[in-house]
């Protein structure tokens, strides 16, 4: 991609980089929320249970099987 010298150069501009320094606390928070979502779809009321009963497991049951998580 080093043909930026010839002619009316196409947009071979270097991309900006985003500062991660001030963003990491809430990015981490977001990742934890996403992990929680993965946990509820993939594992809750299977190997471990945060909520009693079997409703969560059954509600997402087919998605859990088809997404490849161990189910039962």
């Amino acid at each position, binding site marked *: 991609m080093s043909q930026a010298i010839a002619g009316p150069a196409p947009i071979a501009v270097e991309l*900006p*980089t985003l500062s991660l320094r001030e963003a990491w606390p809430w990015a981490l928070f977001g990742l934890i929320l996403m992990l929680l*979502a993965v946990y509820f779809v993939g594992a809750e009321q299977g190997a471990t249970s945060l909520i009693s009963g079997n409703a969560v497991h059954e509600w997402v049951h087919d998605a859990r099987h088809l997404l490849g998580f161990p189910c*039962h």
Partner: protein
Amino acid sequence: MLTLRDFLVRGLLAGLIAGIAAFFVAYAVGEPPVAASIAIEEAAGGHDHGDEAEEAAAAADEGTEVPRPVQSTVGLATGMLVLGTALGGATGLLTGAAMGRLFSRTNVRATALAVNGVAFVTLFFVPYLIYPPNPPAVGNGETIGYRTALYFAMVALSIAGAAIALALARNLRHQIGSWYAGLAGVATYVVIAVAALGVMPRYDEVPAEGFPPSLLWEFRLSSLLVQIVLWGVIGVVLAELSHRAVAQKAAPRPTQLIDA
């Protein structure tokens, strides 16, 4: 001003769209083998009603609280949308963090596609090689804890391998160039993944008889297809949205200013 938050929002949106696409594929291709498996399970009397009450969650009990027609439609959609959105948000953040640093210095579309390709291989495909998904009727309810622990341990090893490989490739870039650094990264990941696949314990709970091999194949293939569609759609949509975000918010500025 372009921030990580812009990528998070676009990733969540891409994930939602991918979840919808994955739902349709799962419903069309995945539900038939799931329904056939449940029919076999029930014909074999797979309901262990005598199980201990505490073990109810782990028991192979189908459709006691949520009726099957709900599980295979709204339930399936919930799972696909929630997982798709979560994974999309995560790869959105990773794409934002990787922009200009990893995979490409000039093309954010390439970065987004590469992030999603790496995520597909790392989070799904390599664990799939050793712990392939099983349909209902396959699997012993008593070992669910063990199998879940193995599955997530394999995912964690795979993530660690990818992180090491990416760090190595990034550090080697200035010495041997992007191409060879990329190859070194891929080789590093392959070595770590093959070692993990060799070391992790294996199990096979497919019944010796009573479950058609062709049905197992159909189910596992449909599962793979669902994941390919999920990551493919996240990748393409995120690539396009990221490109537009950069074009709108970052390009007009001659110099990049990073302020809050």
